[in-house]
């Protein structure tokens, strides 16, 4: 169960990132499938090369932010459909990630990570990672919540909610799309870097399905906490991500369902589809 919570906390950053892109900016961004392993790859390569793990993590975030900027650039500058622009970046990143790593997989098990200093501080080893991750999640949630309530943050929300009104109110919407997409992918890169360090490896295929997992977190969060304002939406992303992991683990470990680990993607897709359909069924009828 600690494993599920830990993974849920790592993917909470993806959930928050997807919330930022899909909900705040109204920009369906699939870049994340590439920027997650990009964050992991950059971080792992730098750690292997002897860099400070914190700097390596920041570098992973910065690289992922650049990936987000590329997608935003394709969309804003060349008017490529956002979905397609993000798919192009995602596909390109697979090659980029292989180049960065030089091989499909890098092991970090014996290396120093940002977690190393926290072992042996009295906390039991299996608690160190969840507690550390939870603290980081709280910092990011508070930071995002405060950010979205600033003049700059409100302008970003208006950009996604009503771009015509935003421009009429003097908001240069393009600029906010760049910043938002950079920020969103930086969070995904952070998740990738943390994943690599807590699991002890970086892998080019680790990003497959990241977007669906992030969406699952957002949608599960929205289903349990409806329309209660920004803070609850952010908290919902975190809770959604953890609940999703627990649900998946229960489904896969209960032998009665006959599921095996390779069914994970199918189970995720079904879960997201259910979360999307249930509110509609609850409203009575599928006519809408």
């Amino acid at each position: 169960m600690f494993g599920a919570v830990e993974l849920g906390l790592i993917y909470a950053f993806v959930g928050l990132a997807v919330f930022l892109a899909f909900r705040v900016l109204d920009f369906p961004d699939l870049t994340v499938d590439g920027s997650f392993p990009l964050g992991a790859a950059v971080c792992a390569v730098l750690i292997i090369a002897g860099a400070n793990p914190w700097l390596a993590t920041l570098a992973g975030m910065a690289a992922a932010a650049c990936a987000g900027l590329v997608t935003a650039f394709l969309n804003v500058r060349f008017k490529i459909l956002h979905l397609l622009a993000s798919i192009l970046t995602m596909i390109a990143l697979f090659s980029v990630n292989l180049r960065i790593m030089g091989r499909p997989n890098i092991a970090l098990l014996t290396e120093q990570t940002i977690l190393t200093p926290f072992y042996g501080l009295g906390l039991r080893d299996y608690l160190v990672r969840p507690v550390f991750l939870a603290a980081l999640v709280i910092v990011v949630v508070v930071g995002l919540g405060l950010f979205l309530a600033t003049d700059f943050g409100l302008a970003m929300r208006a950009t996604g909610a009503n771009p015509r009104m935003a421009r009429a109110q003097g908001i240069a919407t393009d600029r906010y799309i760049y910043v938002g997409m950079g920020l969103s992918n930086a969070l995904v890169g952070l998740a990738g870097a943390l994943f690599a360090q807590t699991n002890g490896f970086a892998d080019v295929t680790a990003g497959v399905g990241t977007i669906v997992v992030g969406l699952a977190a957002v949608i599960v969060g929205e289903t349990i906490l409806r329309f209660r304002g920004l803070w609850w939406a952010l908290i919902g992303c975190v809770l959604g991500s953890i609940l999703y992991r627990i649900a998946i683990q229960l489904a896969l470990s209960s032998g009665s369902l006959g599921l095996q680990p390779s069914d994970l993607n199918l189970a995720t897709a079904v879960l997201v589809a259910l979360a999307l359909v249930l509110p509609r069924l609850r409203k009575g009828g599928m006519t809408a």
Partner: protein
Amino acid sequence: MIRVENLSVTFAAGTPLAKRALDGVDLSVAPGEFVSLIGSNGAGKSTLLSAIAGDITASTGRVIIDGEDVTRQSTARRSRKVARVFQDPLAGSCGQLTIEENLAIAAARGAPRGLRHALTHQRRALFRERVGSLGLGLEARLHDRMALLSGGQRQALALLMATFSRSGVLLLDEHTAALDPGMAEFVIDLTRRTVSEHKLTTLMVTHSMRQALDLGTRTIMLHEGKVVLDVKGSERSGLGVDDLVKMFRRVRGQTLDDDALLIG
């Protein structure tokens, strides 16, 4: 205050569907003037407003606001000088944001948007006072999401938002057309108060001849992208709705004749 020189806008230029929406319009609006714009569908009224606001870029000609040539400026940049209220009540605000958040977005217009909290005590107090002056009781609902309000309430707030940060120019695009009669009257009244209180230079598109003559100081009729009537002062005050309708029919009749010739 607003000067439009030889302004032409052609949609789908260079294709068989090319449509000349504005055809060499010259117009000069003095500071504080309140112009009502009328004309049939497709006459170019909304296009003229959009060209001044920046949503549409002129094919030829210039737009000068407050002495500055803004022809190539983006909508966002022009918003320092120009505020706008749309026909669609949903277009002027963000439904998923609260009333006070929408007001804060408008209050920051024309200033750099930084990382300070948007809803300071100062701003909240200002919002309560200004929203209270509308007399709609909305000052008690500043935390409500905009989507919960009626079209009329949203339009009244959009008008209020337009006066924040004193833009100087106000563009109204049939801003009462989507409202029920009672609320439309309220918004018209509010428009009159707002424009005179803030001494705004105003361009208002309307389909109502009555409204065109009742409100404002000058009336302009567009037809097929050209100014066909421009009256103010005593000449305007002597006009009745009937006269306007007659003129309206006359310019439209001309095109009918033209069409008849073409078909014949």
